């Protein structure tokens, strides 16, 4: 059966929380390292200082030894004990031993000796236990070569470790306390920095949360960090495309509604009139008109769909290298014009060099077809179609010997004219609208030119480099 419903999970952790957690972790790791290092250093420092005291005391005692009538005498100096009392809470051990280890003076019969080593002659420090407590010792040896006494006298001085440990702890505490304060300050600062760095993101997410889900206008990107600008740019492009496709769909629907309603109504009226027409000749004439109207309605539908397709492909179809000469050639070879105007003469004017653009072949083909159909319908023969390169632009043009469109239509060609121009049932406007939208989709324009004795309309697209030409 179905898994039990997952428990309602809390909100995922915020970016700020994650950053702060990481900072806290880093600080803690750092603190542990520093504490360890400080403790080590503190112990080392304490060991060195108190080792010096031990050595000083031992050397004090060593200096006080003298030989009197063949016997070592120790004038035990009080200064040695006062040195050792620098660690006031620590127990003391001392022993002065003659050759062979006989105790000359000392606190303890037990011989606390350093671990056997090659007698280097210098002071030997070592750790041992003193009455059950860990302690530190030093042994120095003073050698005598008198007439009546010869040999080494060893002085061992030791001390328990309380003062050392207290000093190490004190040093560590004195170091760690400021470090702790610094750590807290760092934490507070990283909190502030993180908050301020993430503020644009928070503002943005708040903005997005409050946005109308149908609002496809671009999100403003001024003053935002670069990372966000990239992300927002992509989102804005996506929303723009979505917006244009929605727009195209709306246009298609409203065009279809607008343009199909009148001819369909006219066909219905004519069919009804035919139904009531008793006269056969009149009825035959009506039938012919009805047929013409339905054909024209078919052409209109074609164009509507073609425009919708072009506008859809302009957004979505990939751009591929395309030779405009081939487009012109294909239009001529398809021979649609022979159906439309069998008597018209059509010439193809193309050069040797390829005329390359980057565009969608279907859309450009539709545009060329519409240009040609317009010329066949409204222009005067002879009609020519051609492609050429004009500097940085590539042109696909259709020329006829007529005067060109009426100035009113020509003036509207540069605007968003398609709907007003297409309001007539059989207009050139819709065809030109297709051309205009292809031009817009691939970054080009439509140009109306009036050469000697005729009219020429051209679709100008940015020329692609020659390398794109097929081999």
């Amino acid at each position: 059966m179905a898994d039990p419903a997952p428990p309602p999970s809390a909100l995922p952790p915020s970016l700020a929380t994650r950053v702060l957690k990481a900072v806290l972790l880093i600080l803690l790791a750092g603190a542990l390292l520093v504490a360890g290092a400080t403790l080590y250093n503190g112990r080392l420092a304490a060991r060195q200082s108190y080792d010096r005291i031990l050595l000083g005391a031992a050397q004090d005692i060593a200096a006080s030894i003298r030989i009197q009538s063949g016997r070592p005498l120790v004038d035990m100096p009080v200064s040695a004990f006062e040195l050792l009392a620098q660690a006031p809470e620590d127990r003391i051990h001392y022993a002065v031993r003659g050759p062979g280890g006989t105790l000359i003076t000392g606190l303890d019969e037990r011989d606390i000796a350093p671990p056997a080593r090659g007698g280097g002659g210098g002071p030997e420090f070592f750790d041992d236990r003193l009455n059950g407590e860990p302690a530190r010792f030093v042994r120095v040896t003073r050698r005598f070569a008198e007439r009546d006494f010869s040999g080494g006298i060893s002085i061992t001085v030791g001390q328990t470790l309380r003062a050392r440990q207290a000093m190490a702890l004190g040093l560590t505490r004195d170091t760690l306390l400021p470090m702790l304060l610094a750590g807290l300050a760092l934490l507070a600062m990283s909190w502030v920095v993180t908050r301020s760095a993430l503020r644009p993101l928070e503002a943005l997410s708040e903005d997005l949360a409050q946005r109308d889900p149908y609002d496809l206008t671009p999100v403003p990107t001024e003053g935002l960090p670069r990372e966000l600008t990239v992300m927002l740019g992509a989102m804005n492009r996506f929303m723009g495309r979505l917006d244009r496709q929605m727009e195209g769909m709306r246009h298609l629907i409203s065009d279809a509604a607008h343009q199909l309603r009148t001819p369909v109504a006219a066909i219905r009226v004519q069919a009804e009139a035919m139904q009531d027409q008793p006269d056969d000749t009149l009825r035959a004439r009506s039938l012919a008109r009805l047929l013409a109207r339905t054909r024209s309605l078919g052409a209109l539908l074609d164009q509507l769909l073609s425009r919708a397709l072009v506008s859809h492909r302009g957004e979505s179809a990939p751009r591929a290298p395309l030779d405009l000469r081939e487009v012109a050639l294909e239009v001529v070879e398809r021979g649609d014009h022979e159906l439309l105007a069998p008597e018209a003469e059509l010439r193809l004017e193309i050069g040797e060099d390829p005329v390359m653009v980057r565009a969608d072949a279907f859309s450009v083909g539709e545009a060329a077809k519409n240009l040609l159909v317009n010329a066949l319908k409204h222009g005067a023969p002879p009609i020519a179609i051609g492609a050429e390169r004009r500097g940085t632009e590539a042109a696909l043009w259709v020329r006829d010997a007529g005067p060109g469109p009426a100035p009113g239509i020509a003036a509207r060609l540069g605007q968003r004219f398609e709907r007003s121009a297409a309001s007539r049932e059989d207009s050139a406007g819709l065809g030109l609208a297709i051309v205009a939208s292809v031009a817009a989709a691939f970054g080009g324009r439509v140009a109306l030119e009036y050469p000697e004795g005729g009219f020429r309309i051209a679709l100008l697209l940015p020329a692609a480099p020659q390398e794109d030409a097929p081999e």
Partner: protein
Amino acid sequence: MTLRQLCTWLSALLCVLLLAMMFTLPRPAAAQERVETFGAGATRLILRSTTDIDIIEPVIARFAALNPDLSVLYEQWGSNNLYNNSRAACAGRAAPADAVLSSGAHQMVALVNAACAHPYHSPATAALPDQRRWRDELWGITEEPAVIIYNTEALAAEDVPRTRFALLDLMRKKPELLRSRIATYDIEDSGLGYLFAHADSLEATTFGAMLEAFSRVGAIATCCSLTIIEGVSEGRYHIAYNVLGSYAEARAAPNVGIILPEDYTLMMSRSLMIPRNAPHAEAAQRLLDFLLSPEAQGQLAELGLIAATDPAETSLLPSARRLIPLSPPLLLALDRSTRERLFRLWDEAFSPDAG
């Protein structure tokens, strides 16, 4: 076997048994001088002390009254014997006491240094000055001066020595008056006497001159505070040097004058230690806290065991008070070579053929 033979046998057996009993039965240690029991509580706290029972009795009685569950067995010891007994107890060779209170500060420091003491910490011990505390294992209970006493009848007012220098001058000027009339502790018998002599030897160069002068006038080294004080009172001695001021105060007859030397006055602190293996350490801690309480300190001050610190009362400048601190340097006093040296000097001064 005849009846006679049997009798001989039996008596021999009895003898052996008696001998065995003599060796195995615990015998009271020969060294202790007096024993007194205070209170009747079930737990018996053994306090070994060098302090004269007659002097400290009110304080111990008060403690026993405040703690009805305890009874205090007070054993009075000589300081050297007490030290040897405590060392033996520390090594497990003798029955340990529950608390040891001794005037031999150097011996107590040595016992603590040898890890024979039990640590304890309380607000009362924390309030003690550093000089009267070591390692939270040794606590100075009293503050008693080492004084010069004199017989007021034997010494003219202008001859009374207020300082050691005055005493030296007096011995030089009037040797006949003082011949065999000066007494001091025998340092070989008395741990306290040795401690004072040791402190003197560290404190000032007058020590050598003093020994020399003692030697010239044939000073007497003898035992025990009370004997010396009585001797001064009775006129056997005119002057006694380094006598424990508290005893002099408590015991002195009206004809005994007390001088706190104005160059410096040594102050000794009777110190208390709880042996590491004390059977009733908790009771001993109660005793310690009681002895440091304001009530007991007040009692001790009345008994003369805590010298007044007010200069107006004692005519002693604070800078002249030299409290012998309970700290590691006191170990020097027990050092074998130091003792040998001091004893040698002492013997030279006090040997019968000296002077």
